[in-house]
């Protein structure tokens, strides 16, 4: 990876993406170290305010990773999360940040390679945008 180390938060459903990340680790698959994983019981728990607060604290990107459409453990949590991600993208645009700093991904617990692809794709995307202007020069509110 090139550029400044990034701080990307990945909200991962414990029934799929979190397990996929675990599997990727178990298989010794390499992926960019810029992602910090937060385990959710379901992406349906994804909270707009929490994501906004993360950006306010200076994170560079946020990804939500839930089950494949139709496979949500709670039936539709992943579909509801997608709508919320769309709303957050709109809010980021209003605020003056690139809407693409937040994205939704879907995968099953067995899809370790897809987890690696998603993280790589997100890291490359954010790298192109550069770190969040809210943390450049210490403007971010949070430290670590």
């Amino acid at each position, binding site marked *: 990876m090139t550029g400044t180390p990034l701080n990307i938060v990945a909200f991962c459903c414990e029934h799929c993406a979190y397990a996929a990340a675990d599997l990727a680790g178990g298989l010794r698959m390499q992926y960019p170290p810029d992602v910090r994983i937060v385990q959710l019981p379901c992406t349906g728990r994804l909270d*707009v*305010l929490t994501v906004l607060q993360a950006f306010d604290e200076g994170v560079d990107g946020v990804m939500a990773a839930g089950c494949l459409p139709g496979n949500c453990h709670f039936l539709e949590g992943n579909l509801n999360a997608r709508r919320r991600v769309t709303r957050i993208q709109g809010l980021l645009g*209003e605020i003056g*940040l690139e809407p693409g700093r937040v994205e939704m991904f879907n995968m099953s617990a067995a899809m370790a390679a897809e987890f690696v692809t998603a993280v790589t794709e997100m890291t490359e995307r954010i790298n192109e945008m550069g770190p969040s202007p809210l943390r450049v020069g210490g403007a971010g509110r949070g430290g670590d």
Partner: protein
Amino acid sequence: MITAERKPLEEVKDLIGEARNVLVMGCGTCVTVCFAGGSREAAELVVSLRMATRLAGAPREITETTVQRQCEWEYLDEARADVEQADVIVSLACGIGVQAIAERFPDARVVPGVNTTFLGMPTEHGIWEERCAACGECILGITAGICPIARCAKSLLNGPCGGSEAGHCEVSPDTPCAWQLIHDRLQRLGVLDVLMQPQPPKNWKSSRDGGPRRIVRDDLRLAGEQE
């Protein structure tokens, strides 16, 4: 409930202008249950405004408080200290709350953070629909419990008009024709014949047309406050 919708962030930023200390005030009742101006929405606005003003190179001190009801002096007074230290208050209550702040705190600058929209109800998650026009003289007793003042685009008392088509109103395929609904429900209740009795013109004096309205209940007034 009174429903409202958040104003675009750009508009709120313009309303705030150069103010340094911004207080976002949520309301814990109607606008909380329609997800427009409760404590969560206040927190969302605070964090959004904070980011936007920092990005614009003009960071502000932005704080938040939410009272149970902005339209009652007792609750509003709880926020007095916060109000007094703010250069501007962004009220997320309906227009009543905004005006209550202006009336209670004569020196405070208050601006609305939401657009008050209508009197209505949630018909499903994420959808609210208008139900009442607060016309001051309820006629639901003769319209099968469906309000043609609020729900008919023309507020007809003897409908439907010629624009009623396959159950929906001519203004939009998404709007059910109120008079079709009234007809169907009267029929279901077996009292369709009430439609044979045309309704005389409504006296709109009890509505907004008679000017701002006021209710006085002498039995509830406190003796010390009698005029």
